[in-house]
Structure formats: structure tokens, C-alpha cells
């Protein structure tokens, strides 16, 4: 026990004291907020509006189009992200100044030649030709200098869409009131039916599950490599042999894993506290403006489950990294060999979609028992349709037993592999090493 503590202490103190740790702890949140802010800043850069001439051969569309372009996208469903983006960009990137051009005795070709000329001298950025049969055929042409500007083109297209829809309805003699009624967006509220009766659930629980899965995913990506490095460290520095005369490989492995995990948890706790403080500040700020944010009503027991499954997820993947570490001689080599683990992690993460859709299916049951997918799958099931306690207990039991088993195998491979300097173990070799000694 003292030996284990000595290893844990060394791993923890050496890492927490390192500059890397301090820099990363401060820098990562800064970097993430930069990634959040910079795109918004870039998108909000104003560009001059596009000057577009419209040759409206239908004689009815110009006014409609103009209205449609100026109107906010309020008649689209608010949850439609694509339209929100367009609405955003209309204010920023894709605004238009329209100009109507009539044919007035000239042929279309003459007018176009004239417009092309204006396009060339940059009096104009583009022109739109609505043929006489536009309303029935629904085809128009947009000539411009920059067809790569997909945002403006998209904005133009959806504006035309709305305008023609409006015009067709007018021609079908639908009155104003009915038209408004037709385009009124609907609101879909997800109501969860639980044991306690009906409760409103605005998807916050799902966001929470996603959040847990995501944090787990991130911390594995970050710390898996560190666990691997820690396991390889003694091989690279040739300390392993000194250690093995005084400590059992399993104790060493366990100590390393726990030590690095405590570092990970310390870092996550620092970020968590910083984020909570930030969020609390934000919520208060909103509250002072009369906006309240409801925290989803989740029973305390579920939070305990979340914690347990988070730890399970972390440890199952961390031991997988340790296993890889036991087979290789340098951390770089391990990085390549660890690719399947990342793949497994990604697949398990996306299982939240099918499991969330049918949480009581046999498929959902099995993936929530298999250790590598259990952490995300079981949490999704708990949140959506809490499975019977025995399933949760079974999943945890199998999961943590697997952690110990993988660690045991890893320590055996490690013990033999340590003596083979400068040579990576092949899979059959690793199996043989695990059997002998």
C-alpha cells in the first residue's frame, strides 16, 4: 500500500508541478473561448451591400423580392439553424441593394449587354433575370462576378423562394390573413413521461448527456496519451528494471493510472469551477434582465450515476492506453498504435443517437453493458428511460472488472516487454508475454 501511494504521489506531484500542466490549465479555456469568439467576430465584419439589377419579365416579382429580402427571417421556424445563419448573414455579409431594370422596347440581349458592361466597370455586382414564365417554371438566372459567394447566392435563393411563394398565393386569391396563418411557424415541445407523471423537458437533459459524453471524450483524448507516456516513461528512461526489483508491475501500473487520473480530475475540477463561476455570473446577469434559466430536474441519484459512469469511461479507455503503452518502447510509437482506441471512443460516443431513440431495445441493453460503450450508452438510458437497477449495477460491475483485467494483462506484458529494449511487441508476442512470467 505504501508502495502504491509512493507511485501515485510521484505521478501526481511531478505532473501537477510541471509547467505544462499550469500552462495547459490556463491556456485551454482561453483557446476554446477564442475559438468561440473569433468566428463570430469574423462573421460580423460588414461588407458593402451587393448591387444587383433585376430584370423582372413577369412584372410582379420585383416588389415581392424586395420585401422578402428586407424582411427578417422571422417567418422561418426559429429552431432552423440554417435559416438562423442566413438571417445572421443577411445582416452581416449578404445584404443587397436592388435596382429594377425594365426592357422598355429593347431586346433582352441589348439590356444584358448593357448590364454586362456595368458589371465590368464595377457599377454593379450582379443581375438577376426572371423570365416571364418564372412563376410557373420556377427558374431564374443570377449573373454575377463572384459565383463563389455562396452565402449571397443562398440568401438570394431563399428570398426568391419566399417571394414566389407569396406571389403564387396572391394569384391563387388567398387573402392576407390566411397567408400569414399559413406561414406561422409551429412550436414542438418535448414532454417526457416519467414515473412521477408528466414533466416538461426542454431537451436540457439531453444536452447534459451530450455534455458528459463530450467531456469524457475530451479528457480521454487529452489524458490517454499522457497515460501512455507515463507507462512508457520507465522504459524510455530505463528505470523499469530498478523498479521491478522493488515493486510489483501491477502496483506500478495501478499507481500510475491513479496518479495521472488525479491530475486529470484536478484539471477538470479547476475548469469546472471556473466554468460554473462564469455560468453563475451569466445566469445572474440574465436574471437581472428578467430571463430565467431552468436547470433540468434530475434526481440526485442520477448525478451519482453520471459520476460513476464518467469514471468508468475514463478508466476503461485509460487502461486501454496503458495496454498500448505496455507493448511499445516509445510514446511516439504508442500514438500510432492507439488509433483503434480513438476509433472505438468515437463510435461509442455516437451511440448516444440510436440509444437515445430506443433506450429499451436489446441493442441499447447490450451496448450499455459492454464496457467500452457503456459509459455513454448507459447514461443516455438513465436519462431517457431509467433501466432497472440491476442493469446499471451489472454494467458498472462488468466495466470496473474489465478495467482491472486490462490493467492486469497490461502489467504482465509490461513486465516481459520491459526487458526487450528497442523492440515493439507484435500482438501475438504480447499475448505470449501475458501468458508467461
Amino acid at each position, binding site marked *: 500500500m505504501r508502495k502504491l501511494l509512493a507511485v501515485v504521489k*510521484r505521478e501526481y506531484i511531478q505532473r501537477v508541478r510541471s509547467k505544462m500542466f499550469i500552462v495547459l490549465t490556463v491556456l485551454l479555456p482561453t483557446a476554446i473561448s477564442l475559438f468561440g469568439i473569433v468566428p463570430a467576430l469574423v462573421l460580423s465584419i460588414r461588407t458593402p451591400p451587393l448591387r444587383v439589377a433585376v430584370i423582372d419579365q413577369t412584372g410582379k416579382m420585383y416588389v415581392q423580392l424586395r420585401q422578402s429580402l428586407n424582411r427578417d427571417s422571422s417567418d422561418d421556424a426559429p429552431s432552423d439553424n440554417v435559416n438562423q445563419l442566413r438571417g445572421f448573414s443577411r445582416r452581416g455579409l449578404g445584404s443587397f441593394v436592388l435596382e429594377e431594370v425594365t426592357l422598355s422596347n429593347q431586346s433582352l440581349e441589348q439590356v444584358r449587354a448593357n448590364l454586362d458592361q456595368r458589371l465590368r466597370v464595377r457599377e454593379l455586382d450582379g443581375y438577376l433575370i426572371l423570365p416571364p414564365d418564372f412563376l410557373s417554371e420556377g427558374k431564374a438566372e443570377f449573373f454575377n462576378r463572384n459565383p463563389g459567394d455562396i452565402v449571397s447566392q443562398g440568401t438570394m435563393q431563399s428570398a426568391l423562394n419566399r417571394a414566389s411563394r407569396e406571389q403564387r398565393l396572391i394569384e391563387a386569391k388567398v387573402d392576407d390573413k390566411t397567408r400569414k396563418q399559413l406561414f406561422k411557424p409551429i412550436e414542438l415541445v418535448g414532454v417526457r413521461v416519467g414515473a412521477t407523471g408528466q414533466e416538461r423537458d426542454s431537451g436540457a437533459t439531453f444536452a447534459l448527456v451530450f455534455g458528459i459524453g463530450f467531456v469524457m471524450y475530451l479528457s480521454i483524448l487529452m489524458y490517454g496519451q499522457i497515460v501512455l507516456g507515463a507507462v512508457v516513461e520507465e522504459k524510455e528512461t530505463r528505470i523499469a*528494471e530498478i523498479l521491478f526489483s522493488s515493486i510489483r508491475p501491477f502496483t506500478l501500473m495501478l499507481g500510475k493510472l491513479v496518479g495521472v487520473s488525479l491530475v486529470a480530475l484536478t484539471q477538470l475540477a479547476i475548469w469546472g469551477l471556473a466554468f460554473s463561476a462564469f455560468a453563475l455570473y451569466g445566469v445572474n446577469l440574465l436574471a437581472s434582465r428578467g430571463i430565467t434559466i431552468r436547470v433540468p430536474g434530475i434526481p440526485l441519484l442520477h448525478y451519482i450515476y453520471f459520476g460513476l459512469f464518467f469514471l468508468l469511461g475514463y478508466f476503461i479507455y485509460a487502461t486501454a492506453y496503458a495496454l498500448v503503452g505496455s507493448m511499445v518502447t516509445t510514446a511516439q510509437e504508442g500514438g500510432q498504435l492507439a488509433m483503434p482506441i480513438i476509433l472505438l471512443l468515437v463510435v461509442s460516443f455516437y451511440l448516444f443517437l440510436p440509444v437515445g431513440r430506443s433506450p429499451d431495445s436489446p441493442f441499447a441493453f447490450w451496448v450499455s453493458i459492454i464496457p467500452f460503450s457503456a459509459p455513454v450508452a448507459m447514461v443516455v438510458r438513465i436519462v431517457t428511460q431509467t433501466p432497472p437497477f440491476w442493469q446499471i449495477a451489472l454494467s458498472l460491475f462488468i466495466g470496473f472488472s474489465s478495467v482491472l483485467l486490462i490493467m492486469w494483462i497490461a502489467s504482465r506484458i509490461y*513486465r516481459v516487454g520491459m526487458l526487450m529494449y528497442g523492440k515493439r511487441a507484435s500482438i501475438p508476442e504480447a499475448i505470449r508475454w501475458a501468458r508467461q512470467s
Partner: protein
Amino acid sequence: MAANEVTVSLNGVSKSFGEFTAVKKLSLSVRAGRVFGLLGPNGAGKTTTIRMIVNITAPDSGNILLFGRKFDARLQDRIGYLPEERGLYRRMRISDQLRFFAEIRNVRGKLIESKIDEWLARVKLSEWKHKRSMELSKGMQQKIQFITSVIHDPDLLILDEPFSGLDPINVELLKDIVLDLKRAGKTIIFSTHQMEIAEKICDDICLLNRSQKIFEGTLREIKSSFGRNAVAVRCEGGDGVLDDPVLVSKVVRHADEAQALLAAGADAQTLLKRLIDSGAVIGKFEMMEPSLNDIFITKVTEAA
């Protein structure tokens, strides 16, 4: 500790890696309170033998007893081991490093600090206590590695090529420490292929060659078994005489002196007479014991 108490005994131990036999039916016993040298050329099986003693690899057959019993985890704290492949945590401070190695051998917390200071003073590295090991020279690191193997005051100390790469001053320093530890009643096993050092500090030796034992016994025994069949000669002229294979089986010439190993059946008197007859001016002619190096080479060639 009784003089004849056996600290380590190997009984018919064999170990092979695939096709290659590293150690073949090796039996030996290391007596308590003595310095035991495991000698042999590269690839003789010294390191494998040591690894089996400290339970890093298990023998394929035969058994090993430490302090009269089979290896178990509690024995680990009574053994100090300095492997041939050794290193330090590069970024760790020396004091933290030594503390860690003491802790994993269950040294009590209060003792550790004084032990660290004591040992650093002994190897003359006290002022490096708070430096990181990557800042130390290779020789300094080697002395720190040595401390890691003795910081827990082990009863049995096993050193695999402890002197390789050290300068003569540090070889001397380490040698004195080993002899001090012996005086304190510790048992020391070390392997080397540097015979001059082995000759100076070993009580008992075991010669290994090609995975087999070719000799085991006290240094005295092996030396007297070879008899005084070497001669140190300093003379001017008469060179051809020393090269006569009938008289001399091997000659090593140093700066002003030559060492001649007498051929089987030849005697020193004849050699001296031949030298005088050849007109050589003799400055020195001394019968001496063969060096361990000579014995080693003779034994190895005999075995081959």
C-alpha cells in the same frame, strides 16, 4: 550473521529465450557477508542470472532461494538492485528521486531525509541535491543510481556492471563503499567483466562462460589452484626468449615490464637461465600469481 550462512542459492537453474539458452543448469551459493563476483565475457549469462535472482524473470527450471526461502514480495525490501540498464527520471530533482526510491522500499518517512543527505555526502554530490537529474553528468548520474540501490539499507546488494563507465577516482570511491558495506555485514553480488576490479574486492567468484559455470569458489582457491606460474620480467635484450612457446604460453608487455605465463611443463629456473644465456640484463625477475584476467582467459579458452 554466521559465516557459513547462505544468502542466495541457485539449484540447477536454466533459462532460455526461444532457441537461445542463456543459463544452463546453474548452481551456486552466495555466503552471507561476502562479496561474490559473477564474472564472464559478454553474453555469458550474468545479467540473466541476476535478473532471475531478483525475480524479474523466472527460471524455466531449477529453483532459487533468497535468505533460505522462495522469493516473495516482502523480500523485495531487503534487496538492493542496480541493473546494467539503468536510468533516472530526467526531470525529477535528485532529492525527490531518492525519496521516491526509498518510499517504494518502505523506508520510514522520518529516516528518508537523513539517509539522502548521508549518501549524497558519501558520494560527494551533496550540492547537487536540488538539481534535476538531466543536469548531472553521466558519472554523477551513475552514483545517484547506485544510491537508489542502497538507500533502503538492504541486506543483499546486487550490482550488475556497477563500475562500467566510471573514471578511476569514482571506481575507487564505489569500491570503498562496497567494502564498507561488506564490513557492515551485507552480502554483495556483482557482475563484471573487468577482472582487475573483481580481483581487488571479491571474496568468492563464479566464472560463467556460454551460459555455463566453469568455476566457483574463493578467489584464493582459484589462484592457488593455478599455482605461481607467472613471471614478471624487466630486462634489456633477450626478447626472443619470452616468445618461445615451449617456455612461455602467453606474454603481455607493459611499458617497461613484461608478464609471462609459463607454458605447461616449463619452469621459471629454465626461463631465467635462458634469459641470462641470451645476454639479457635483468632488472627484475619475480614469480607471481596469475592475474584473475589470465585465469579467466585460460579457463575460457580451455572450455572452448
